[in-house]
């Protein structure tokens, strides 16, 4: 689950010696000694990268699917007839019917909403925690940094899946929103550490810049400097990390639903459908393969998108 982040983090450590963190913003890094800005350079790179376009297209398609599932399929996911159990394709149900006699394709399409919602909310929550903690640790330094960095170390040491199992077992409510909220809460609570480290290191780089000293000389207070000057400059690397994290959160949600402790019916989720499809794979394989493909494509799209953007913005990895 978080393996991708681990690789990325270790690779980056290996690849660069010196101050870590993405180069701040485009305009100051580039303007000084290069004719083109870093953002321009990155965009030129991205434009020629097929992976970027493919993953961007997939992200757009899946987002549309989450917002307007009715456009992609005419059938209702809850229109189930046991008499059609594992029946072949017919009348709009291009992938046939599953164990309960529901339209396999329609269920996969409608499952997008819960997955993307959980992923996006968890990434948002993670982003807020990471920005607050990373900003405080990076800006104030000294004992604040020492304490917060140790907190990050400890939380990073907690195995995500195991902790999520214990936390979610405690949630007894079966209501749709309570479960979605619980999964989001657990993922955000355990998943903010990588992003917080990235924010911290970029804040440390940003606060040494001349414009921060200038702002301070003009009499700006700590909160104004943090909000107006440092935050905009450390946002970009955080957003890249969060895009990748969004993909891993979707995978984590599906894993928890697969285990039976994440989202539950009536919410339609890929993890649950994969589990049901797996049990009956000998009778019919499409109810397993279709939601699996949707899940894998969504997770890959977000991870590859984040990866492509990071590669473009990080000249040292080129």
């Amino acid at each position: 689950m978080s393996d991708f982040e681990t690789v990325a983090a270790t690779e980056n450590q290996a690849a660069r010696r010196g101050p870590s963190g993405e180069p701040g913003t485009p305009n100051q890094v580039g303007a000084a000694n290069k004719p083109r800005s870093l953002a321009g350079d990155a965009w030129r790179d991205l434009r020629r990268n097929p992976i970027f376009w493919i993953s961007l297209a997939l992200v757009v398609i899946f987002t549309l699917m989450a917002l307007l599932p009715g456009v992609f399929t005419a059938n209702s996911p809850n229109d189930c007839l046991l008499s059609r159990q594992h029946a072949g394709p017919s009348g709009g149900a291009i992938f046939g019917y599953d164990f309960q006699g529901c339209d396999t394709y329609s269920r996969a399409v409608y499952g997008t909403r819960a997955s993307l919602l959980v992923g996006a909310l968890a990434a948002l929550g993670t982003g807020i925690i990471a920005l607050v903690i990373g900003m405080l640790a990076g800006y104030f330094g000294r004992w604040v940094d020492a304490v917060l960095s140790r907190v990050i170390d400890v939380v990073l040491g907690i195995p995500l899946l195991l902790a999520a199992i214990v936390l979610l077992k405690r949630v007894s409510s079966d209501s749709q929103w309570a479960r979605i909220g619980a999964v989001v809460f657990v993922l955000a609570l355990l998943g903010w550490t990588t992003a917080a480290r990235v924010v911290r290191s970029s804040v440390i780089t940003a606060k040494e810049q001349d414009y921060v000293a200038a702002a301070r000389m003009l009499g700006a207070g700590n909160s104004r400097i943090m909000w107006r000057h440092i935050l905009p400059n450390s946002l970009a690397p955080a957003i890249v990390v969060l895009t990748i994290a969004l993909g891993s959160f979707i995978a984590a949600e599906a894993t928890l639903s697969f285990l039976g402790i994440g989202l539950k019916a009536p919410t339609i989720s890929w993890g649950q459908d994969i589990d049901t499809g797996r049990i009956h794979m000998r009778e019919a394989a499409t109810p397993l393969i279709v939601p699996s493909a949707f899940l894998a494509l969504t997770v890959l799209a977000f991870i590859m998108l984040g990866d492509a953007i990071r590669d473009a913005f990080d000249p040292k990895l080129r």
Partner: protein
Amino acid sequence: MFRYILRRLLQMVLAFFGTTLIVYALTFAGQGDPIQALAGERPVTPAQRAYLTEKYNLDQTGVGGFFYRYFDYVKDLLQGNLGESLTGRSIGDILQQAWPVTVRLALIALAVAIIFGVTAGVLAGIRRASIFDNSTLVLTLLVLGIPTIVLAPLAQYFLGVKWQLFPPTAGSDPTFYALLLPGIVLGSLSLATALRLTRASVAENLRADYVRTARSKGLVKRRIVIVHVLRNSLIPVVTFLGVELGNLMSGAIITEGVFNIPGVGFNLFRGIRTEDGPLVVGIVSVLVVVYLVSNLVVDVLYAVLDPRIRYE
């Protein structure tokens, strides 16, 4: 060095108490009347109640009582006394039977990661930006991005059920052959990570001064790669694989569940399915300890192996 180990040890102790406290607080504390819960629907006599209250220190109330019982739980955990599952079996016994299977599976996964991951990583690192390098990078990205809940059932369906190359499930007392497919599925994630790490580290070391010196001495490329580059490049990989062994042992929940392998993860999987609270908590507590200890060992190993890294 000594200070680093000491700090790391303190950190682990903190993480240990932090996680066990969360586990304990969420599962045992805050439930209504534990004695009545133990007895179920049957009546409890005052004598039994007094005995149980005495035995489990239930008369201590408030925050002090909570920590009193929490330390009891930690003491039991450290002594390996994990209680019984809802079906009445001792959790210690269940784990004793399950560990060997899980360890075997983890070792197979690790072997897969080392044989394929490290070899391909070295090749990709030497021929950076070649077709081989680019295709392995895309492949590893695919493997890293596809969740296990997709990979395991699909591998089981295609390789086990449809084309019948491997036995689809393992069952009790699994053979090496039955564990091979789950081992490959479990190891594929570590394989991808090991490959990328080896590649990055080989590519970096190939540019080092000592490699240039070796080349100017006229050594053949094979010798430079094997003797000079590999030895320095494998340090991060070795440490990564060490952490991974811990991860593999605690992370095989899905793989063992899907392939019906009677290991630790499978028991946890079943415990979650049958809502067996004590079993889940017991196994999670043990796995957390395994995870923390393996992380600690590897971090210390890293500090010993790589003198270039100076810890404050």
